[in-house]
């Protein structure tokens, strides 16, 4: 039941890191030192036993390798593609301390998990029915990981999502050169294959169904709603056509289509990972001139350096120390007027105008505090749902995980938090027996 468009725009992208062949995987796996108490394991938020899964690739015991991965992280297939491994597992490989390239853990993980998908190996069975049911709000990575773990313990699950697609930002947000929407959908289908997980699409909790109604209908609740819409810049011209939120834009072209033939030059405002993804995507989609507009200096960008270096190689230019003052144009945007800042982000009095017929705002996503306010007893800190180490909110019977609780991290964090929440929910439901 794919909801992605066959002719969708993202289909033009190739994998940035191509898959390993059998021989490449063997040779890389054989380089792994099989460290004791390996640092890479600690660097993986889901704690995959990386040396073990790699050793199992090296002995051509791929099925057991995949099981090791999925046992710790049921989203191991997409994580293998979308994790910023350079700052996670690969970044802590001991080879970094030697004059040796670190083990390509993500690519090996992809090798094992892709085979598992191709062969349709299933490793987990639902636990004996407990008669309990859990509501999960949002069908993103956090809820999928949570629901799968709950099913292993035998609890019935219903996931509610306001959208019509499964997978959350893993389907609609992740850059297509890392993973295409259909792959995330295939992952969701594979996870749901454990059985006993209902999904209700087009249901926005808090709008067309109340939080309380959910809590009444279920024995526990997991909140995995992610973040809200793109932040906006409140400057003149803010409503011009062609000024679009970056996450919103990405969500339109990944599972669907966008018409970009008329766009000659595009500007992306921001310096984080969404901004870097957006500029690389615009270049990949064939826009002749793509500029990143960022207030600070290059080495202060919050986006990953390895991603930004790739963007530069692909032809992206940047206008650093530039603060948008206004979007110019009549009806449709034609340019961005910026104040030129100094290194301390103070105005220098100078201005520059950058031509643009498409402007994407990548300056962060709103927190969904307002939406959740109706869920009495849940508390917030800087817009995030407050949770304890077991992902429990301050309201009894309600757990939360993923971007809405961590403020916006990675898929692998959502997978970890969803899974741990499920373990806590299981203890709660069994205790409440």
């Amino acid at each position: 039941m794919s909801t992605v468009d066959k002719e969708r725009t993202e289909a033009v992208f190739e994998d940035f890191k191509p898959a390993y062949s059998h021989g490449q995987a063997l040779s890389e796996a054989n380089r792994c030192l099989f460290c004791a108490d390996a640092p890479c394991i600690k660097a993986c938020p889901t704690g995959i036993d990386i040396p073990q899964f790699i050793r199992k690739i090296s002995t051509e015991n791929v099925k057991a390798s995949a099981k090791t991965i999925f046992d710790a992280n049921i989203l191991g297939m997409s994580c293998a593609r979308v994790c910023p491994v350079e700052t996670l597992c690969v970044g802590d490989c001991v080879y970094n301390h030697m004059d040796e390239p670190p083990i390509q853990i993500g690519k090996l993980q992809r090798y094992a998990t892709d085979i598992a998908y191709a062969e349709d190996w299933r490793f987990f069975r639902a636990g004996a029915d407990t008669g309990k049911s859990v509501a999960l709000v949002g069908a993103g990575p956090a809820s999928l990981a949570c629901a799968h773990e709950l099913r292993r313990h035998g609890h019935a699950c219903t996931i509610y999502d306001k959208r019509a697609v499964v997978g959350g930002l893993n389907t609609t947000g992740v850059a297509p050169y890392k993973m295409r929407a259909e792959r995330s959908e295939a992952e969701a289908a594979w996870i749901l294959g454990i059985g006993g997980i209902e999904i209700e699409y087009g249901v926005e909790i808090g709008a067309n169904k109340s939080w309380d109604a959910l809590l009444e209908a279920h024995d526990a609740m997991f909140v995995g709603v992610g973040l809200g819409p793109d932040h906006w810049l409140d400057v003149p011209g803010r409503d011009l056509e062609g000024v679009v939120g970056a996450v919103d834009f990405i969500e339109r072209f990944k599972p669907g289509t966008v018409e970009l033939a008329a766009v000659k030059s595009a500007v992306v405002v921001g310096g984080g990972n969404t901004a870097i993804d957006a500029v690389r995507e615009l270049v990949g989609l064939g826009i002749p001139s793509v500029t990143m507009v960022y207030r600070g200096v290059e080495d202060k960008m919050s986006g990953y350096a390895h991603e930004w270096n790739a963007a530069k190689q692909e032809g992206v230019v940047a206008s650093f120390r530039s603060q948008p003052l206004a979007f110019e144009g009549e009806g449709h945007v034609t340019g961005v007027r910026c104040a030129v800042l100094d290194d301390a982000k103070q105005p220098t009095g100078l201005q520059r105008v950058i031509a643009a017929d498409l402007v994407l705002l990548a300056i962060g996503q709103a927190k969904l505090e307002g939406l959740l306010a109706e869920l009495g007893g849940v508390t917030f800190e800087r817009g995030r749902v407050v949770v304890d180490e077991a992902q429990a909110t301050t309201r009894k019977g309600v757990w939360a995980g993923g971007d809405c609780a961590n403020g916006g991290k990675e898929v692998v964090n959502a997978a970890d938090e969803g899974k741990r929440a499920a373990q806590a929910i299981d203890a709660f439901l069994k205790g409440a027996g």
Partner: protein
Amino acid sequence: MVSLKTNCGGIESPNPFWLASAPPANSGEQVQRAFDLGWGGAVWKTLGTPIRNVSSRFGGLHYRNERAIGFNNIELITDRPLEVNFKEIYDTKKKYPKHAVVVSLMVETREEWKDIIKRSVDAGADGLELNFGCPHGMCERGMGSAVGQEPRVNEEITSWAVEYSSVPVLVKLTPNVGDILPHGLAAQKGGGHGVSLINTIKSIIGVDIDNFVPMPVVANKSTNGGYCGQAVRPIALHMVAQLARSPEFKIPISGIGGVATWRDAVEFILLGSSSVQVCTEVMLRGYRVIDDMVEGLEEYMRSHGFSTIDAMVGKAVPGYSEWGELDMNYESIAKIDSDKCIGCQLCMVACHDGAHQCIHPDASGTTRVPVIDESECVGCNLCQIVCPVPDCISMVEVDNGHAPASWNQHLAGEGTLRPKKGSH
């Protein structure tokens, strides 16, 4: 000035590197190409009554990223007509008068030996090698290792060969025996001018676990074969040294088994070989490996002050002694260079699970560099062996104040042994 000129049992060659009797020395065209590239000699693929070979003949032992660290074969002696071989030997010798062309032979009866030796010498052979070593196929016919395993038969056939031959005779020994010495001495007694060892070791290289047949598979069956290549070098070195250090054994040795680099050749020479023979490394990588072998050996000789091969032969033999002569009071311990350590902790797990439980995590928890409990370290080397970083773990001698004392001295009531070290 360094000279690589070699004389092994009276057979001379410009350098000590010979192709072993095997596929790389199967034909004149091959041997001549090898000489052009720098090989000093070749032991021709064993001649005898031509046989037939099976299809699927070799097997490789692969380990991690390394292909064929061990190699096995079930092929027999030459399958080409004798007259063709002799003609090619003649042509080769004509074109390469200074290179060593040794002809390997394996036949059954005295008459056959007489005949084939005459033809070999007539063709211009610089020497003969009696193949008493092949562990498969031929021994079932009463040849090869069937002869090599019987010192009396070995001695007798060797004496025939020496009688009929006007050129030096080397006896190629099989390693498929409990103690190599009686076999080396038998060759010497029979009048052999030298020995070559080792031939291949009886082996099954692996099993096809889907079809339940050992490898290499011939149709639906397999057979035991001969093992060679890098993995057998330690066995070959031991056998060579075993002969070289025996006071009774006095004839030259041509060392064979797992020679892949100049360094391996140096090891064989230091343990008593005056030439080395190579088969598997050439089968895997071609004759061109000779470049590095020759240049590496020359450089080694220069840097170690050897001007001739003869000066090197057997240099490490006196250092090879019985366990009972080792100094029990010598003490070494492992030291980790914390600047080099990458924190893989392989030494720790190895010491804990496979040695003496004396490498521990740093107690402060601030570094992954492990700590060695020197009072417990028995100096076994395991940590140094598993460490992936060059020169990170070194074994350092400890001055413990005890005068040297061997086990034999201890048994004889001389010398005092230091107390046992380590509580494990």
